[in-house]
């Protein structure tokens, strides 16, 4: 392996009284894919912010090619050779791919000083060709799926001749096929001698693509490992700091008898261009899984069941009676709850406190006139902070300041406070660390045992098979079948992929 490109030594950073990063080292070598792992709040984001000049370290230094650098802004870091691609692609969707690729350094016509649009397109095409990407550079970036946008973002980062490429949770919103394409691209860049820092929550992806792993825990280094020599259990132990004993799993007696009545039932429920008519019934005490690729109609089905979109065919029956769900408030009144896929944009109200966020749905269902007394709101918040293990000291903290896992728990608490009949969870564990994920899954099982009906949507087959009884599978906006309790991930995968068994 060739030499060290980036060497961060003893980086420290504190925000107020909290130490975010304490004497952390990081070594990136040319031509390696280096995974950065850690739970939420372990300091990954802070480390990246220091490397990319978003924040400046309180102590320690960053060496790039043997020279100390001190980037004060992302632009300075980029000029020095450190480029970053974030989970949310921050390019301009309304501009063309070519314009995005060349933004900030447009080639000019020599005689007029105006932008040379022909050369913009040529440059863009050449840049993409180097990465073996073939897309129409004249089309608007927003017209491409997120996966392509992300690759364009990577191409843009490479266009400024990056020595170090930081990928911050790039796979969170990609389906399995797209993840594969991204990995191919990453390996290609590795061959060209780029040092890649890969941040993710997915263990299998770390093992699929990375060469070395640096683990952070509570802002401190927890070791640097060679991927080949570290077992998954060893990695988890390094991240969590203790042996993770048993994974959460359904037990045989959790199976609900097949002749029990449905709590909530969809009959021919569908919406044009979103979902072909679907029949689906959920029983009390059951965790029903909903599997399928991104865009298969999983989220659309949940949205229809919750009145978030209007169905144009079929009906929803609750406890045997057809109900008209015009808006989410109607669904909430019927005892339904939905934790949406996109926590930030549709879930939490970031500027409101933990207490207010937890009380919001219960208060909404009571109407504006019957205010929950503040003491009751505080009691609710404290109760769920204890039950779900939400890490927050003051219930008046704005939710936006919590980590992703804790935000998700606040969202869960909001719905549990309404004691729903049916809890729908759309990718509740996305972007959440392992410990929080296990806690949330254990809580779901506990709720089901108490008689709540749960609809669990996940792209992760392991989660589905561990947690769920029956699993309904969607493909291309159709329900293609149901698997009985006890199916393994192979069977789910086969049905998702459309193999005939």
């Amino acid at each position, binding site marked *: 392996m060739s030499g060290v490109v980036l060497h961060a030594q003893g980086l420290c950073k504190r925000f107020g009284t909290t130490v975010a990063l304490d004497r952390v080292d990081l070594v990136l070598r040319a031509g390696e894919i280096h995974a950065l792992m850690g739970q939420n709040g372990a300091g990954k984001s802070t480390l990246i912010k220091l490397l990319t000049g978003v924040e400046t370290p309180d102590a320690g230094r960053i060496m790039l090619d043997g020279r100390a650098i001190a980037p004060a802004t992302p632009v300075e870091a980029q000029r020095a050779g450190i480029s970053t691609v974030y989970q949310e692609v921050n390019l301009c969707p309304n501009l063309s791919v070519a314009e995005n690729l060349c933004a900030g350094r447009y080639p000019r016509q020599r005689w007029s000083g105006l932008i040379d649009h022909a050369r913009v397109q040529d440059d863009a095409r050449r840049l993409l060709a180097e990465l073996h990407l073939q897309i129409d550079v004249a089309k608007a970036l927003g017209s491409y799926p997120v996966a392509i946008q992300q690759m364009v973002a990577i191409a843009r980062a490479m266009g400024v001749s990056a020595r170090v490429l930081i990928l911050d949770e790039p796979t969170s919103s990609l389906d399995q096929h797209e993840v594969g394409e991204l990995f191919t691209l990453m390996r290609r860049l590795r061959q060209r001698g780029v040092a890649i820092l890969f941040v993710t929550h997915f263990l299998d992806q770390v093992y699929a693509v990375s060469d070395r792993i640096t683990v952070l825990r509570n802002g401190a280094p927890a070791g640097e490992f060679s991927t080949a020599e570290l077992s998954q259990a060893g990695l988890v132990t390094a991240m969590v700091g203790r042996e993770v004993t048993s994974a959460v799993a359904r037990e045989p007696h959790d199976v609900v008898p097949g002749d029990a009545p449905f709590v909530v039932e969809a009959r021919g429920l569908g919406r044009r261009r979103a979902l072909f008519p679907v029949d689906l019934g959920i029983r009390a005490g059951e965790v029903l899984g909903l599997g399928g690729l991104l865009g298969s109609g999983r989220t659309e089905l949940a949205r229809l069941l919750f009145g978030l979109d209007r169905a144009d065919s079929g009906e929803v029956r609750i406890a045997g009676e057809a109900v008209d769900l015009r808006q989410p408030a109607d669904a909430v009144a019927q005892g339904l709850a939905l934790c949406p896929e996109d926590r930030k944009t549709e879930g939490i*109200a*970031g500027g409101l406190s933990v207490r207010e966020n937890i009380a919001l749905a219960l208060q*909404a269902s009571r109407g504006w006139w019957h205010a929950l007394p503040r003491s009751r709101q505080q009691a609710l918040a404290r109760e769920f902070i204890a039950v779900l293990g939400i890490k927050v000291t003051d219930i008046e903290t704005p939710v936006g300041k919590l980590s992703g896992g804790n935000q998700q728990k606040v969202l869960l608490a909001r719905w549990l406070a309404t004691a729903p009949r049916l809890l729908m969870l759309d990718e509740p564990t996305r972007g959440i660390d392992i410990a929080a994920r296990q806690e949330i899954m254990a809580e779901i099982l506990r709720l089901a045992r108490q008689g709540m009906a749960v609809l669990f949507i996940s792209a992760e087959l392991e989660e589905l098979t561990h947690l769920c009884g029956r699993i309904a599978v969607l493909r291309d906006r159709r329900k293609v079948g149901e698997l009985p309790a006890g199916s393994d991930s192979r069977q789910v995968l086969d049905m998702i992929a459309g193999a005939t068994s």
Partner: protein
Amino acid sequence: MRRLFAHPLAWPLAALALLLLANGLFNPGFLALQVRDGHLYGNLIDIANRAAPLALVSMGMTLVIAVRGLDISVGAVLAIAATVAAWTITHLEAGGSAHGLLPLFAAIGAALGIAALCGLWNGLLVARAGMQPIVATLILMVAGRGLAQLISDGQILTIYYAPYAFIGRGFLLGLPFALFVVAFVFVALKLLLDRTALGLFVRAIGDNPAAARLAGVRAGAIMPALYLFCGLSAGMAGLLVSSNVASADANNAGQLLELDAILAVSLGGTALTGGRFSLAGTLIGALIIQTLSTTIYSTGLPPQVNLVAKALLVVVVLLLQAPRFRQQMLSLLRPRPRSPA
């Protein structure tokens, strides 16, 4: 000291105090109060009294802005309400039924009813038809004045009916009646927002409309109600203004009021991006604007200076409220921390 200045009302209050203090220094009689005929008189009372219409409208505007909205039709709605009130009184008088207090209540009812309808119209356009607030309320801003002029036949309507004068010029317990109107609306709103769940819903919608909807908050009902109240507050202001000058000028009443109201709201520390709002801050904002006008008139500067001074004040107060500017200023005051390395 730093904790004190971290309070959201600290900067607006400081600005108001500074303005009044400067006036007191250059014009020793400025802060004096005196009792004449059992009424309290003085520049401070005068400022509060003159600020009343703006304060009312600004409170309505605060709630609309708190849910990421805007209502630029308030000036026009004020003109409509004033005209309708004057028209009602004139017609009842002409019809010979100007007995007792009937015209007074008829005028108030008609003006406020029309103003509330105007607000509801705005609210339905925004919340149900999904129009951009600035465009939706632009319709009434333009059409409203036309409507008012149609009612008044393009004339300035003069009000000779004496009981009506009480609203804008009367005194109660030694204080101008208009102050009681503002105080009543403020307290009623505070109770409504804090004692019911309305305050929580308003902030939730303003902070994240999609999340509020998904949590079951009926924004489709709440937002029209807020616009309706904003219209109503403009209507009340219309009553104060027309009563004070005993006439209704469809063309000029409430001219540019929407801008002053937005200014008062932002001076008071309400975020124009929604979610965070302060009614008390808004009242202070309205007082700042009126104090500035009064200052300029009382110093004998040409009234045109008022607009420029207002602009300067806006720049200063808004800069003080901008987090980045404040941080830079604070870091200038603080000794640089030594690096621990």
